[in-house]
C-alpha cells in the first residue's frame, strides 16, 4: 500500500478516491489537486510512480491543511470562541447546536443520546 505524506495509507482505489481518505480532502479538492499536478485521476493508487507519490505528498503538505494540522486548527478556533465569551462559544460550552438550529426536537448529534424526561408530554401537570 502506498504511503503519502506521513502516515496515510490509501488503498488500491482510483487515486481521486484514495486521496479523499485524508482528513480535510474531499472529492472536489482531490480532483483539484490532481489537476494541479497533471496526474490522471483514474490511475490506481498502487500503480503510481514513486516520484508521483512524493510529489503528491509534498504538494499536499505544502499547500493544504490536512489531518492533524487541520484538527488542531479546528480545536483552536473553537477554543477561541469559548474564551471570548460570545454566543457561539457559549453554545459550544453547553454542547448545543451552534448555528441556530432548533433544539425542541432533534439536535441529537450535539446533545448525544436521548435522555427521557419524565412527564414531558403531559406538560399540563407540570408546575
Amino acid at each position, binding site marked *: 500500500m502506498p504511503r503519502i505524506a506521513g502516515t496515510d495509507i490509501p488503498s488500491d482505489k482510483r487515486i481521486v478516491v484514495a486521496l479523499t481518505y485524508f482528513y480535510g480532502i474531499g472529492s472536489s479538492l482531490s480532483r483539484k489537486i490532481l489537476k494541479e499536478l497533471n496526474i490522471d485521476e483514474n490511475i490506481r493508487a498502487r500503480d503510481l510512480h514513486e516520484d508521483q507519490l512524493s510529489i503528491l505528498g509534498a504538494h499536499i503538505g505544502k499547500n493544504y491543511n490536512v489531518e492533524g494540522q487541520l484538527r488542531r486548527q479546528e480545536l483552536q478556533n473553537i477554543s477561541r470562541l469559548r*474564551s*471570548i465569551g*460570545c454566543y*457561539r462559544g457559549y453554545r459550544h460550552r453547553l454542547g448545543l447546536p451552534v448555528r441556530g438550529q432548533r433544539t425542541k426536537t432533534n439536535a441529537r448529534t450535539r446533545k448525544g443520546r436521548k435522555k427521557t424526561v419524565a412527564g414531558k408530554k403531559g406538560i399540563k401537570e407540570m408546575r
Partner: protein
Amino acid sequence: MSRSIKKGPYIDNKLLKKVMKQKETGVKEPLRTWARSCTIVPEFVSHTFMIHNGKVFNKLFVTDDMVGHKLGEFSLTRTFRSHGGKKK
C-alpha cells in the same frame, strides 16, 4: 463572491463616532449602545461597551480576538434556568 462580502461590514456610525471621540479625549467610559448588529472593528479594541440585550446593558471589554464578531454576540438575550433537580 457572496453578496454580504460586497456589501461590507455594518458599523453603526454613531457608535463609531463616539469611539473616535473617546480616542481623542482619552477618556474611556463604558459606552451604552443598542447597536447589537454592529460589527466590532479594530478601532473598538480596548474600549468598553454596555450592550443592550432587550432588558439590561451587559458590560463588554473588547479585546483583539473579538474583532469581526458582532456586538450582540456578547450580550445574551435568553436566560436559561437549568433543567432537572427536585421540585419543591
